[in-house]
């Protein structure tokens, strides 16, 4: 709580002092910069957390500015004015949500294209604004109205702006410390992993984009009152580009960074533009330097110095609480492949795979490299779509739904190269995994779920030998590859899926670690009485773990039987003739 209240309080205090210290004109100026800063804060949150760079935030800023100008011109009562303004902000958010979810649906790599779409949209908006004189007043703009509640831009309106700024700051600071903020960060960190944890990432991106759009829209409402005029430049690309520069220089990873960037740069611009002819060049140079050398901007630099000054408090061991049960614990079920084909480009990867697993037990998948083992897991989770044939889990079709729906149907998956959230700590990784399938929407906006600890994760961490137990506060990027295998295993198993897919979980592990991993896998299976599908090269592990072995070769099932039977199988021996295993 203190981490939200103290910065917000300091911000509020500083801003409230400005009129009496520097006079009402400076307050007027700062008021405008704060309005810009609110937009930049929204951009910073979106860009810094989810990695989406919006080039057209003035679409929302400008359109609600126009809307509220019309509201102030045409509507008499304050109450209705406020209702309609709120409505315009909500509409902006809804449009942003629809736009982003539509573009991001089914793709994880459309970031740059989305940016260009917002660029094209802002160009359209600017064009429409300047050539629709009946609606926007054209080039000369829409003016001749009183500010909201007759608040004087040189007087009380400033306090309204300060209020909104502080609320926006508190909101974002709070989000940073809530599960919602954690999930937003996870999107840019490792989107495929988040999808496998059951999160529909395009909707998360849509929500964050909608939030940044609503901040821009709110700022637009204030702008209309503050300026008394709205012109096409308020909906134009040039202002959008300014927002980006301010956000980047101020620092997109911190809530206060974009605010600082907007106020400092805009104020310096106002002060220096008239007299210092190299000002624009300087801004461009600073911007380039920030992009190249210091992506965290001013805020990052300041916080490094700040941390040197103020010693970090020793954080005490948080007191964890029991996590609620997963939303629906499904009974064990068989996995059934029927004539499943997979084609990528012109390459046939799976050629009529057919098998039915038991509902319980450990099934090891073996086969030479290129046999289609990982692809088999990919069609189960929906990362690749089978081109022909059916896949049934508990008699239900699962071969044509997106990866984020896998976990809710009871399928968890660990990838071949450990795929975790690299910018987070081990503890945060586990928290994200614990939220999966347990948290309802309101849990994301409450701090308590951050301390959730499921019984299963507790039992895992109780293993002294588990390399995670004493590393909860460590960054994943500092973790060796082998330890990441355990982390990803824990995350995949956290939601207790009835079907656990493990792709070479023992690769890169030491002998002792391999034993631990095989123990954990076996324990998981006995505890949940579910099904584990495991790709493994090491025959000793296969022998130790497997109830059944599925041998794949060139996209087809070569054998599906017990380890002993498979070992005696001549076809299998022929495939492995050249190899050791």
């Amino acid at each position, binding site marked *: 709580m203190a981490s939200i209240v103290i910065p917000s309080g300091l911000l509020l205090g500083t801003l409230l002092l400005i009129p009496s210290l520097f006079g009402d004109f400076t307050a007027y100026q700062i008021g405008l910069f704060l309005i810009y800063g609110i937009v930049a804060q929204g951009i910073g949150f979106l860009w810094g957390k989810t990695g989406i760079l919006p080039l057209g935030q003035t679409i929302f800023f400008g359109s609600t500015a126009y809307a509220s100008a019309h509201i102030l011109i045409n509507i008499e009562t304050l109450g209705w004015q406020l209702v309609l303004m709120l409505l315009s902000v909500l509409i902006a958010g809804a449009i942003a949500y629809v736009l982003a979810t539509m573009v991001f649906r089914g793709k994880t790599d459309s970031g740059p294209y989305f940016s260009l779409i917002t660029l094209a949209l802002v*160009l359209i908006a600017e064009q429409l604004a300047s050539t629709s004189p009946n609606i926007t007043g054209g080039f000369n703009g829409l003016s001749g109205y009183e500010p909201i509640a007759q608040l004087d831009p040189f007087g009380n309106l400033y306090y309204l702006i300060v209020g909104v700024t502080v609320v926006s700051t508190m909101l974002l600071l709070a989000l940073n410390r809530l599960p919602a903020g954690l999930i937003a960060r996870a999107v840019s960190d490792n989107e495929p992993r988040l999808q496998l944890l059951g999160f529909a990432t395009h909707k998360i991106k849509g929500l964050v984009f909608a939030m940044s759009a609503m901040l821009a829209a709110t700022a637009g409402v204030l702008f209309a009152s503050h300026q008394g005029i709205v012109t096409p430049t308020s909906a134009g690309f040039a202002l959008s580009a300014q927002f980006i520069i301010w956000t980047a220089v101020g620092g997109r990873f911190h809530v206060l960074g974009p605010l600082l960037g907007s106020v400092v740069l805009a104020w310096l611009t106002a002060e220096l533009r008239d007299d210092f002819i190299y000002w624009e060049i300087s801004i461009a140079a600073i911007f*380039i330097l920030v992009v190249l050398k210091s992506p965290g901007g001013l805020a990052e630099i300041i916080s490094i110095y700040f941390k040197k000054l103020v010693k970090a408090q020793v954080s005490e061991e948080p007191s964890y609480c029991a996590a609620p049960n997963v939303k629906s614990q499904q009974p064990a079920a068989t996995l059934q492949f029927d004539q499943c084909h997979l084609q990528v480009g012109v390459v046939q990867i799976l050629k009529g795979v057919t098998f039915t697993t038991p509902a319980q037990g450990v099934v090891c998948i073996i086969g030479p490299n290129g046999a289609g083992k990982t692809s088999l897991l990919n069609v189960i989770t929906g990362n690749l779509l089978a081109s022909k044939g059916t896949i049934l889990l508990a008699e239900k079709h699962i071969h044509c739904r997106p990866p984020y729906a896998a976990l809710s149907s009871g399928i968890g998956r660990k990838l071949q190269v450990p795929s975790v959230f690299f910018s987070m700590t081990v503890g945060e990784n586990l928290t994200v995994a614990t939220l999966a399938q347990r948290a309802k929407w309101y849990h994301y906006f409450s701090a308590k779920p951050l301390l959730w600890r499921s019984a299963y994760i507790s039992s895992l961490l109780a293993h002294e030998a588990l390399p995670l137990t004493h590393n909860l506060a460590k960054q994943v990027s500092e973790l060796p590859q082998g330890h990441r295998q355990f982390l990803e295993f824990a995350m995949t198993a956290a939601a207790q899926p009835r079907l656990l897919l493990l792709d070479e979980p023992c690769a890169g592990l030491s002998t002792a670690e391999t034993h631990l991993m095989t123990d954990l896998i076996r324990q998981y299976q006995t505890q949940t009485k579910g099904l584990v599908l495991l790709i493994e090269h090491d025959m000793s592990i296969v022998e130790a773990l497997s109830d059944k072995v599925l041998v794949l070769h060139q996209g087809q099932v070569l054998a599906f039987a017990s380890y002993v039977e498979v070992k005696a199988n001549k076809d299998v021996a022929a495939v492995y003739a050249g190899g050791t295993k």
Partner: protein
Amino acid sequence: MTPVFLLNLMWQLSLLAVVTLGLAIIFGQLRIMNMAHGEFVMIGAYAPIITSTLGLPNWMQLPVCIASVALVALILERAIIRHLYGRLFDSLLATWGISILLREMVELAFGRGFQSVPLPISGTVSWIGIDYPAYRSVIIGVIILLFIGLTIWYKRSLVATRIKAMVNNPELAQAVGINTVSLSRRCFVFGCISAGLAGLIIAPTAQISPLMGLDYLIRSFFVVVVGGLGSLEGLAIGVGLIAGSQTLLGALFNQTYGYIFVLVLSILFLWLRPNGIYRNS
């Protein structure tokens, strides 16, 4: 579909093709979202003015154009761009900064005012029964020849394959003996020079001022996006769609519709076919 309209269409197509070429090389091949592309066109357009300021004869315009653009490009590549390979977003941001920098530099050097470059070939010539500006006629021919040459070169030359290879798999490219550092630099400078040459060609037919670059940036970007990155065929299709639809709608209705249509078209492509219309497979 009058003959003049067809010639105008050809002029617009060849002009947009030559303007976009540089971006197609730098964005399409090197994956640098070069927001300063228009500024290189602008510097190229200033070449005749630099030439006359230096008191050089007119035929020196071409070498002056190549030299000045190459110099700027080389400095920027060494100082900034080389850190940006493989960093798509950062390349967009940093080159946006570069574009401001270049605009301001040119403004300091040559002032804000409009410059004028006389047509090297004046008058009109008769084509398919109509009079058409001689300079345009010659340039259409030159650009067509240029692109035929480029297509042949691109198909045959090892350099083109090596650039493709470098972008596709930098590590392996090094392993087969490609000096990727130097190849990227040469590729970037080449792209900039081609933008500069486009500027030189445009100079006598358009407004010349430090702010002119933006006119050429946006459409080029959407050509590359609509056509698909990294192939001359894609470039051709993109140019055809963007210039064609704008010219057609401009002639049938008005320019505002043409402009908005191009933007909407680009959005649809970015959304539904982000790899562009042309994919060679």
